[in-house]
């Protein structure tokens, strides 16, 4: 029982980190970046190739993955989304889905569809015993990373000048630019942060579930999106709570109800939450401007 809770929190922490990327991009660029999940997969391959084939140390392989994804996120935003800044949200959504398939197919070309056995990059962390429960190093590392990311992001958006600028851009791009804030630069920065986090999520995910394929990011991406909506899209603590709850629900559903039905249960819970509270658990009411 407690074991399940721990693995649920650990899986949920990965969802939470992915959901943070979704939620930040949504909050600032007002778009759903459906390719976010595939950036996780690219991050996984970047870490795999350098860590496994080239035997780079873990920290360097992870750093490389973060750099690759950060650059990739910024480039995708510039090439695919920026030209659509004034287009309908449907056009942007379709483009994002296109980018998602593009990334999956590029991965298919480079790495083929054969799954790679991802080495556990958190194996250096020792397990700990609390009473009779054992927490694996992987779970511990994942949860701690998640907490660090959450605290760092919250401090960044609440306390730093750039973070506050991000909040103004999320509220009113025109008014933000009147302050002297470079709106396009701020949106790029958001994509950079979100994509860098996706690389970390990719390494954590593949360390816990070690099959890496071009489609690896797709399902966690959709679930993390669900988590972001669940917690209240646009809200950082919401993404966190949504991600962890989702992970716990999924693991418990798998353990006590049915492995096959676990995803259906996860999405059913989302639907119920949205019926009861359409803005998600911590979502702010969207105040319409006159």
């Amino acid at each position, binding site marked *: 029982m407690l074991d399940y809770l721990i693995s649920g929190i650990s899986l949920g922490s990965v969802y939470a980190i992915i959901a943070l990327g979704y939620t930040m991009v949504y909050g600032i660029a007002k778009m759903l970046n459906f390719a976010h999940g595939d950036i996780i997969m690219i991050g996984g391959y970047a870490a795999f190739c350098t860590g496994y084939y080239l035997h780079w140390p873990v920290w360097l392989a992870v750093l490389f993955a973060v750099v690759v994804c950060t650059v990739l996120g910024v480039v995708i935003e510039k090439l695919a989304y920026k030209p659509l800044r004034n287009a309908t949200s449907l056009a942007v959504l379709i483009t994002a889905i296109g980018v998602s398939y593009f990334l999956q197919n590029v991965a298919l070309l480079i790495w083929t569809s054969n799954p790679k056995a991802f080495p556990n990059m958190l194996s250096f962390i020792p397990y700990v015993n609390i009473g009779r429960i054992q927490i694996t190093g992987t779970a511990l590392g994942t949860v701690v990373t998640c907490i660090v990311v959450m605290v760092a992001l919250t401090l960044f958006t609440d306390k730093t000048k750039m973070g506050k600028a991000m*909040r*103004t851009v999320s*509220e009113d791009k*025109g*008014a933000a630019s009147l*302050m002297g*804030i470079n709106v396009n630069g701020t949106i790029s920065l958001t994509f950079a942060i979100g994509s860098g986090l996706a690389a970390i999520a990719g390494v954590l995910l593949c360390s816990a579930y070690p099959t890496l394929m071009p489609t690896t990011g797709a399902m966690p991406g959709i679930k993390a999106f669900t988590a972001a909506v669940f917690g209240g899209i646009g809200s950082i603590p919401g993404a966190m709570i949504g991600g962890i709850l989702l992970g716990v629900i999924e693991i418990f559903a798998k353990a006590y109800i049915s492995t096959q039905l676990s995803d259906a249960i996860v999405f059913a819970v989302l639907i119920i939450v949205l019926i009861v509270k359409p803005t998600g658990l911590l979502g702010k009411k969207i105040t319409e401007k006159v």
Partner: protein
Amino acid sequence: MGNTILKVNDLHVHYGSIHAIQGISFEVNEGEIVTLIGANGAGKSTSLNTVAGLLKASSGTIDFDGKSLLGVPAHKIVGRGMALCPEGRRVFLQLTVQENLEMGAFTRKQSEIADSIEAVYEQFPRLKERYKQIAGTLSGGEQQMLAMGRALMSKPKLIMLDEPSMGLAPILVDQIFDIIKELHKSGTTILLVEQNAQKALSIADRAYVLETGRIVNSGTGQALLHDDSVRKAYLGG
């Protein structure tokens, strides 16, 4: 009267196929209050937003402080000494009062802004009382003061105010106009857009009358206040 600080010449602006501004020219000299008056939809906000870089001009020139502003994006214009306090206030509702003011000084050095914040609080004591409050919880009048304070935080040579009295109770309208007069006295150059033509003309050095995207009349505030056509159209006879 000082040098010309803002000079707009033969400006045209389109929204898609709508020709909203059809060749207007006006200027503002250092130390003046100049007002643009006109009915709803005449093109007053479009003019200010174009000068501030939020909208693109189709043709014409805009010179500020001796340099062209054409093609300069909005976020690079503030640093040159021009601030727009936009229509509808547009304060950042989810930021605190103090954070809103800090954002107004975004282009300035962090070390220089504490004094400016104090100066704004001195001018608007209500804001000081509420400095930690989220701007969304302020009343309309307080939000207008915050929007003006925020614009002043960039230490502008020219401040453009778009309908600062809109939607406010009469007593607050008087207060806002008093503040504008004070700003003027302290040497700030002001370009004021108002639907409240009576009040705007009575404090303005000079004024332009805008009608469907064209300037149809101009002169000193006092002259227009006594102009028959202006009285009929904007001052209720």
